[in-house]
């Protein structure tokens, strides 16, 4: 328009923009409401509508009068929400609360959530939020600092105390010392991924399942000797994720005591030195790369592992071009085993507990928090705020609420005996009884990812398949690596850190692959570290250590 250089046009649009600005301003006011409410937010005496006077852990929550709260609902295509779900009805009956779901397709849940909050249009309860997604909304005050209100949540507090989750909670605190997300709480770490082996092949070669990474190497070597023209190990979870072989790096890194793959974070806590360090430049990281380089160099591992699609990787497994692949319990049963059995005669495949490495029998720390619930600041203005928090506490954090959300109603959807949950006849869960006419998720609305996660080990493990149970029981014995202390960045620091983080992370990932694939010799490690320095590695680490010192000083 400037280029067009017509005076008339310029004036016209300036006038338009002024009037338009007024319009948007109006829209903002009506849309978002005013940022800070007049009343004292700490004073909850006027927000007791429907709340229980005495509400304690382990007690059934029942609102003093019928109330309803809006909740963002992630519509899973596997069990699309129905108004007729027993879950809604029974919930209202037990608690007096009616949930009003705002449905959002699972495919783009985060996008709409961010839009709704951004436009001031969000429901009161915003579940399925993975830390650190809540951080973006902290500084504007769009979501509540829930840590200020956990005194309304006895079950939550009880579990945090019992399971010693304070350090984990500290890790999600913001620079004001508060946290803005009610995370799912786990009694024990639930591990996800590990290696799976074709056990029939191992048996034939007289090999046993490896328990350490050194043994993994030996086993692969032995398979290679038998099949010299194939790569014994191919891997997946390399596309649609910023990290190649994301699962492998996660659990391999864990064995070397570093965060890699999915769990990669530029910054990690060095417990011995009591300071934060740069993950991609640590010795553990280097050792991990050396190990993988050995596998690729000796043609034990398929170099395409790091770039191929999941389908291609699985195809190689099914075509017996490879015999080892990363797995999680679902993929193991529903994909590998299911398809192998149909395709390869006598094939058996099993997942092993994560092999041990130099770091010993450990799992990464901080994994006992799950995705959780954000509470919109608008909820605080509601006069039934207290009742809502009590309700949230009951449904998501009480034993009874968790059992209800997961298994449904005793005698109707399940029976419980000898510490085991059993679905009633005619009800299936994730294909457990293929001929059953009803499905616990689809037809009753239980086991819904929006409401069901976390909890005691007994409850969490109650739905494990035999394979998963074996795997998880071993993993649950392992010791958690210490997690870093709280060191929240201020929002301006955060902005700066974000801009340093990505180039650093990219450089680490890229060179991870170069080193592993032999495109760059590991003798160039020092050069690599100085490249990281040129990309502000030291400044980023400094920023975090400074934040740590500051937080220590301010919050003890």
């Amino acid at each position: 328009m400037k280029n067009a250089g017509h005076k008339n046009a310029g004036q016209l649009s300036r006038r338009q923009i002024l009037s338009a600005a007024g319009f948007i301003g109006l829209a903002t006011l009506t849309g978002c409401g005013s940022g800070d409410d007049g009343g004292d937010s700490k004073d909850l005496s006027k927000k007791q509508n429907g709340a229980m006077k005495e509400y304690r852990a382990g007690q059934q929550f029942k609102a003093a009068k019928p109330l309803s709260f809006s909740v963002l609902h992630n519509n899973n295509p596997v069990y699309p929400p129905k108004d007729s779900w027993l879950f809604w009805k029974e919930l209202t009956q037990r608690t007096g609360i009616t949930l009003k779901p705002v449905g959002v397709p699972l495919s783009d849940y985060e996008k709409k959530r961010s839009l709704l909050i951004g436009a001031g249009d969000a429901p009161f309860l915003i579940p399925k939020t993975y830390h650190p997604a809540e951080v973006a909304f902290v500084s504007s005050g769009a979501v509540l600092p829930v840590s200020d209100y956990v005194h309304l949540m006895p079950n939550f507090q009880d579990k945090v105390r019992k399971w010693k989750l304070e350090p984990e909670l500290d890790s999600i605190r913001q620079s004001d010392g508060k946290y803005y997300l009610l995370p799912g709480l786990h009694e024990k770490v639930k591990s996800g991924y590990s290696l799976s082996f074709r056990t029939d092949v191992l048996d034939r070669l007289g090999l046993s399942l490896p328990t350490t990474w050194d043994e993994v190497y030996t086993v692969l070597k032995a398979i290679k000797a038998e099949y010299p023209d194939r790569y014994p190990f191919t891997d997946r979870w390399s596309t649609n994720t910023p990290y190649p072989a994301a699962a492998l790096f996660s659990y391999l890194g864990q064995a070397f005591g570093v965060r890699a793959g999915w769990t990669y974070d530029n910054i990690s806590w060095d417990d011995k030195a009591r300071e934060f360090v740069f993950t991609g430049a640590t010795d553990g990281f280097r050792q991990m790369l050396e190990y993988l380089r050995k596998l690729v160099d000796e043609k034990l591992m398929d170099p395409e592992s790091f770039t191929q699609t999941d389908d291609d990787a699985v195809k190689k497994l099914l075509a017996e071009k490879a015999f080892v692949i990363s797995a999680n319990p679902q993929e193991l049963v529903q994909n590998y085993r299911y398809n192998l059995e149909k395709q390869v005669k006598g094939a058996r495949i099993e997942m092993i507990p994560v092999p041990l490495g130099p770091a010993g029998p450990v799992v990464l720390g901080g994994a006992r928090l799950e995705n959780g619930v954000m509470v919109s600041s608008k909820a605080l203005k509601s006069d039934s705020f207290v009742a809502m928090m009590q309700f949230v506490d009951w449904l998501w954090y009480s034993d009874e609420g968790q059992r209800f959300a997961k298994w449904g109603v005793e005698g109707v959807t399940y029976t419980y005996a000898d510490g085991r949950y059993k679905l009633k006849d005619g009800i299936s869960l994730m294909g457990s009884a293929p001929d059953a006419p009803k499905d616990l998720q689809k037809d009753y609305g239980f086991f819904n990812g929006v409401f069901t996660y976390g909890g005691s080990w007994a409850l969490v493990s109650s739905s494990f398949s035999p394979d998963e149970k074996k795997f998880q029981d071993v993993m649950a014995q392992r010791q958690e690596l210490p997690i870093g202390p709280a060191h929240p960045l201020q929002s301006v620091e955060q902005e700066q850190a974000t801009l340093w983080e990505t180039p650093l992370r990219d450089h680490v990932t890229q060179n991870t692959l170069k080193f592993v694939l032999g495109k760059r010799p590991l003798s160039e490690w020092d050069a690599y570290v100085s490249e990281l320095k040129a990309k502000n590695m030291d400044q980023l680490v400094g920023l975090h250590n400074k934040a740590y010192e500051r937080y220590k000083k301010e919050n003890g």
Partner: protein
Amino acid sequence: MVSILNTRPRTSVNQPTRGYRVFQGINGVILTGVVVVTLYPFVNIIARSFSGERQIRAGEVTLWPKGFNLTTYRIVFTDDTFWRGYGNTVLYTVVSTAVAMVLTTCYAYVLSKKHLKGRNVLVGIAVFTMFFSGGLIPHYVLITSLGLKNSVWAIALPNAISVFNLLVMKAFFESLPTELEEAAEIDGLSTYGILLRIVLPLSKAVVATMVLFYSVSFWNSWFQAFLYMDRADLMPVTVYLRNLIAGATGATDAGATTEQGSQVAANIQAVTIVLTSLPILCVYPFVQRYFVSGVMLGAVKG
């Protein structure tokens, strides 16, 4: 003589030279190559959509379904949401395309008049918006405060003019011979009359193209509906299928569980492509009539 030629354009008169015949041969080879290269993946996709999971995963499916299997189709077809979504999609596509055609045609016609004062400014207003746009949140607040949420207008109005289509259409209008319009103006036809009775009939090809472009883009779009529709029963079929794909292949992020039967996971994408592109491909031949070269304009003139 002219009229005879017009009905059978430029085949009979000159005897093609040898060079040209060689060219025809090469041309045939090239176009056959194009057909093979583009057709193969599509045939493969259709085959996959009817194939069994085992065969798909083993990479056996090429041109013909292997292990014939209709599970995914059955799951999709027996779902009420799918049919409601299809209905919504048809409604949104028809309304949006109609609105878009009216506005685009009007503006393109105005812009094609070179003598019009302020024309450059009018073009500038449109071109500027190709590069500068508001963010998502301002758009959302606007639609919400106009009260358009959960209605077809939230999809039709904000996308009524694609500047690309607008400029293409304008170029077409400009390339039309001006004599007819001038004659009509002398005959006393109003501007509206000229547009409706002279220009549009001469522009069937471009109108057909634009209808095709707009309807395909509305048909395939999901984001607007996803943003502005709050209820599952208002979603177009694209959102439904997108969600289905996400659910079936959702093991990508750590910890997500694949709760869906693996047959669906294996070919839901293929089924989706078949289901969404099929209707357009069925409609296409009717549109294509207007692209068959040559005769139309000459006939009008002759």
